[in-house]
């Protein structure tokens, strides 16, 4: 919503922080279902960790199927932030790799929001900007 000064205001934003432990033991289907249920509740989900690549693509597929079936649902915006390990030493890389295996990318954060609320997520290697509708 824009006022006369052109300042954009959002009518409230609901963030849901989802620890990886809450989805760790779920099947792919149930993980995606849980995330999409939150999204359909107009929540922006901040997942501690990241989905596997096959789960990410499944999320895209299920999102498309849902657009066809749920009125007013237009899809999602998605971004993953991960630490840049290119310049890290071998020990740090090993630690990071092990932590990732145990906890679904504990150092990563995944942001998933309904496209009606999150208009755009601009990602660059060093910054992430979230534009709300």
């Amino acid at each position: 919503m824009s006022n006369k000064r052109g300042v954009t205001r959002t009518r409230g934003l609901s963030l849901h922080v989802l620890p990886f432990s809450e989805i760790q033991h779920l099947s792919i289907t149930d993980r995606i279902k849980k995330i999409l249920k939150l999204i359909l509740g107009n929540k922006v989900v901040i997942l501690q960790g990241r989905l596997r690549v096959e789960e990410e693509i499944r999320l895209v597929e299920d999102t498309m199927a849902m657009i066809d079936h749920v009125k007013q649902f237009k899809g999602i915006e998605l971004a993953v932030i991960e630490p840049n390990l290119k310049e890290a030493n071998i020990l740090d890389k090993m630690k990071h790799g092990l932590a990732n295996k145990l906890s679904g990318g504990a150092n990563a954060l995944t942001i998933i929001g309904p496209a009606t609320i999150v208009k755009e997520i601009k990602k660059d290697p060093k910054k992430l900007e979230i534009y709300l509708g």
Partner: protein
Amino acid sequence: MIRILKDLSKRILNSLFGRKEDIKLGFYGPPNAGKTSLANVICKDWTGEDIGKVSDVPHETRHVQVKEKVEIDYKGKKLTFKIADTPGIATKVDYEDFLKYKMNKGTAKKRAKEATQGIIESIKWLDDMDAIIVVLDASQNPYSQVNITVVGNIVARKKPVLIVGNKIDLRKANLKKIEAAFPDYEVVGISARKKKNMDDFYEALFRLAKKI
């Protein structure tokens, strides 16, 4: 597991007896990156026919379009491809976006429905491809999660991938940004519309085919 064994046996047979089948080459990427434009250049060059219609309106390709027996004879090397041009993969589809292109509400809603189904179809076809060309718009930010997800999935399926930065004729184009976003993969810059750098593309395509 079955997929890995199938791929492995196919590779062994191919290396023992030479490749009998045409190479299934998929064109993937976000909407409006120029997948159909590039596939058209290739198909027109080697078969004399286009593969599909191009447009400025996103999601013009809403079904996988296939061109069989595309025989490329380049610098004495010959390969036959089955080319699959796929609908652009996105995480959102809003019919209201199509209204800007002077479309009526009914047509826009129909297009949106076809676009969502097209995205699902694209993903389903991934497993059938032997090699994949990811076409990105070089004038856009390459760090979008969809691009990363698509490339990640191709690699996880152990398919060779070539990244093409299209639209390098545009002032805003920045191929270096694509190279920085995907440092582990070969990136070729082209302009399908102006048929620029197609020699580099064909060289890279033959290198890609060797990895199958």
